[in-house]
């Protein structure tokens, strides 16, 4: 099987390098890359950690779609050469490795960090949100983000507007705004009402389509928008 792998290092020109891999049953794209690195080309750079679809480190663009390399079987991809690129919209470090720092920076800019409120410090610092509560059900679907960055790579608006926080940060904001233990709802409300935040999302749901954890950041953003509209009329929560 032919793999066209994106190659680039600082100072060099980007190119797609062609490799041949003997595809075996059950072989994933990550297996193929590891085999290439151990055999044909030790200079090939890519990132991975758990290899079992938990950590999200091996997020790449495979045949035009964001996927984790460790869970993508070569046999499941369409016939023909497999193209492997690094995630879009992140600064390149080398080959398939990108710098994930912007993901964290956007979260901090959006104040997407838990700030303990009064309720969180009651009962010696333990405040529970029951698994059957409405609050918990509302965030259950969006709480499992592993920070792989695939949604940011798939989002077209991220590439057009550098100030748009992106789906991952807004999904996190949604979680925190629904968390009754959090004490920064008001600050975060102001942040999401800025010009380049909620209104910038065009609802294409590319983020939802590629999320390996089956989270729907598009739903989170739409929910934040509805809350923002209700607040305009003075009838909604922050």
């Amino acid at each position, binding site marked *: 099987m032919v793999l066209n792998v994106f190659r680039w290092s600082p100072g060099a020109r980007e190119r797609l390098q062609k490799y041949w891999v003997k595809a075996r049953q059950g072989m994933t794209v990550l297996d193929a890359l590891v085999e290439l690195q151990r055999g044909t080309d030790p200079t090939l750079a890519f990132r991975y950690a758990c290899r079992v679809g938990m950590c999200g480190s091996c997020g790449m663009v495979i*045949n*035009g779609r964001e996927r984790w390399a460790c869970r993508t079987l070569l046999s499941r991809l369409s016939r023909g050469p497999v193209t492997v690129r690094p995630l879009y*919209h992140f600064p*390149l470090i080398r080959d398939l490795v990108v710098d994930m720092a912007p993901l964290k920076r956007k979260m901090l800019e959006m104040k997407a960090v838990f700030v303990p409120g009064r309720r969180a410090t009651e009962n010696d610092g333990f405040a529970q949100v029951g698994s059957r509560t409405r609050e918990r059900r509302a965030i259950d679907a969006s709480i499992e983000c592993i920070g792989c960055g695939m949604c940011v790579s798939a989002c*077209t608006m991220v590439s057009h507007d550098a100030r748009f926080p992106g789906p991952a940060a807004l999904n996190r904001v949604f979680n925190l705004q629904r968390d009754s233990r959090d004490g920064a709802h008001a600050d975060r409300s102001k942040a999401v009402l800025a010009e380049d935040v909620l209104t910038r999302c065009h*609802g294409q749901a590319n983020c939802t389509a590629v999320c390996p954890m089956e989270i*729907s950041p598009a*739903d989170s953003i739409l929910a934040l*928008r509805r809350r923002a509209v209700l607040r305009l009329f003075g009838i909604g929560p922050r």
Partner: protein
Amino acid sequence: MSARRADPVRDRKVLTRRLGSAEAWRDTKAGMWAWLLQRIAAVGLLAVIVLHLKNPFMRPVQAALLALVLLHGLLGVRTILLDFGLPARWHRLLFLLALLAGAATFAAFWRWRWY
């Protein structure tokens, strides 16, 4: 005026999908097509409305106007429904329904000659 000094973080290479490359369009999702079609219909409408105002009785222009209005409007309804809380996982179904409803309305309306 001196040139801006290179910033090792800000000036790093960032890849984006290039409109002209087939690779970038290879896995375009339904939501993106819906968004794109609605925008293309809007731009098309601007041209067709001008032609329609010049001569309202040209059948091909009437057909284009009806088709574009239906496409743009029904995709807009899809967006509104999602905005109002229908789950985003329904967006492909809503896209399909908008296209089918548009085609059916066009066919029904076009068969009905009112003059």
